[in-house]
């Protein structure tokens, strides 16, 4: 599977190489009053790869996603997303970068006055000049992708928690983003529904070549996403199997503790770590 290069999205040439960093955090610090949230956080996310942030509640995981999207500004340090220095951009300038990004919020954050179809097609209806018929087709396509085609005219309140998360994923992917951010996508869901959401994340990453940044404290889901891959067989049937070693190594785990990066490495390195904090977290 060839990963989409950034050049295909009209983004800067220096980041156009496949697997070039899509996100770069350099010594990022953030504090709210006396409370330090992030301390000198440095990492990158490469195109087509998956970055999984783990950590206890309040460790700063969701804050990292909000900084990537430009919803929060760091106190110091630099943040590059898709070739743009987002920590220096105005809200208007950020809209251009966000056009290539999608975010799945913790509780879905669906617009409760809109139907499922209107939620999914929101960005295309409101922020593009695409004809309505084309938007409707795209909405049906992405709802089909997450297996919710029959719910297109329902209100979000009529859906279960898992279905709402899948609608949120459909909404985030509708405008074909390069980079998708997931904030606790499976928190509060039962294990079976969680696997359905995990499968959607894997499908998007492997079939749509979307770079993924996932914040979670559900280790089981994190390992599942890191160690599985999606493909279609000759008949077009979707298959989710154990990933090969190369694919597994494309998923990085980052453990945050007290605003610092406590660990960064692959799934195997995380499993094999003898660090007491990691041991406690893994157990």
């Amino acid at each position, binding site marked *: 599977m060839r990963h989409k290069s950034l050049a295909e999205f009209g983004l800067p040439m220096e980041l156009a190489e496949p697997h070039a960093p899509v996100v770069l955090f350099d010594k990022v610090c953030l504090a709210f009053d006396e409370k330090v949230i992030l301390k000198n956080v440095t990492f990158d996310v490469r195109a087509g790869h998956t970055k999984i942030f783990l950590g206890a509640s309040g460790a700063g995981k969701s804050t990292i996603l*909000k900084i990537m*999207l430009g*919803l929060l500004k760091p106190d110091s340090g630099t943040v590059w997303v898709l070739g743009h220095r987002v920590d220096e951009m105005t*809200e*208007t300038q950020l*809209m251009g970068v*966000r*056009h290539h*990004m*999608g*975010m799945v*919020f*913790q*509780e879905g*954050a*669906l*617009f*409760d006055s809109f139907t499922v179809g209107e939620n999914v097609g*929101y*960005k295309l209806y*409101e*922020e593009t000049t695409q004809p309505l018929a084309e938007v409707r087709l795209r909405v049906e396509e992405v709802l089909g992708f997450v297996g919710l085609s029959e719910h297109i005219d329902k209100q979000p309140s009529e859906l279960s928690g898992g279905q709402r998360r899948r609608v949120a994923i459909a*909404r985030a992917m509708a405008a074909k983003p390069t980079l998708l951010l997931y904030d606790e996508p499976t928190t509060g869901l039962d294990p079976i529904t969680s696997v359905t959401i995990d499968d959607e994340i894997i499908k998007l990453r492997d079939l749509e070549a979307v770079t993924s940044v996932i914040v979670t404290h559900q280790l089981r889901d994190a390992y599942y996403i890191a160690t599985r891959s999606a493909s279609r067989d000759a008949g077009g049937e979707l298959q989710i199997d154990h990933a090969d070693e190369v694919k597994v190594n494309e998923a990085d785990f980052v453990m945050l503790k007290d605003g610092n990066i406590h660990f960064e490495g692959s799934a195997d390195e995380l499993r094999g770590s003898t660090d007491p904090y990691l041991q406690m977290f893994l157990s």
Partner: protein
Amino acid sequence: MIGARQAWLTEWLKNALLEVQEYVKLCVLALKGSVSRPFYARDVMEQIDIIGLGSLTVVVLTGFFTGAVLALQMGMTLDQFGARPFVGRLISASMIKELGPVLTALMLAGRVGSGIAAELGSMMVTEQISALRALGTDPIRKLVVPRVLAGFLMCPILTVVANAVGLAGGWLIALTQLRVPSGVYWSSVVEGLFIQDVWMGLIKPFFLGFVIVTIGCHVGLRTSGGTQGVGRSTTNAVVAASVLVLIVDFFVTRLLISILFR
């Protein structure tokens, strides 16, 4: 003890100044958003329907009974001077210059200000505002500008309705309770009005409508703390908007008197 009080006062002043700064910023952004693209015309129409038509019943009832009770009270007072036929003059002067705009604005502060604060507050605490930004939409343009334009345009129209219904309420009481003939009442209404009064009654609601809606938006967009925070924001929006309506009314009246009655 004194040190603690000073610290508390400093903190309170800092927070108050921050609120004022954020409110002014929101007003500037809303004004900029009203005259630049993207402009969400469909949302403006939707808000005109919600704020304008939705508030019609409460404004009509308020206007009618205010006019009616004014007629009853003034009828009694005017009787002492044998001046009952002049009741229309007093009702038109007080309704059109002052009571129409202020009571309509207070009703809107209760109905519209609270509704906006609760709606935007709920969107804040459920991350729908962040989702809007993540989807590339500016919440000021999408949510604030349509509400501000609708409030700015509909408050004067609702005030005119309240004034008309108030005069009708006064007429009904004058006719049935005070036994003042219709012709006498309506000619008294017209005689009691100067063109400057009409201008004052028409200009003030633009300011009041703007204040009510911007306060609702400001308080709503600064909501935090879950459902409890939404409740707190709703109360704060009504209280702040109601008090500001009276304060702004005073200063705008003072300004208009100096301009119109020179």
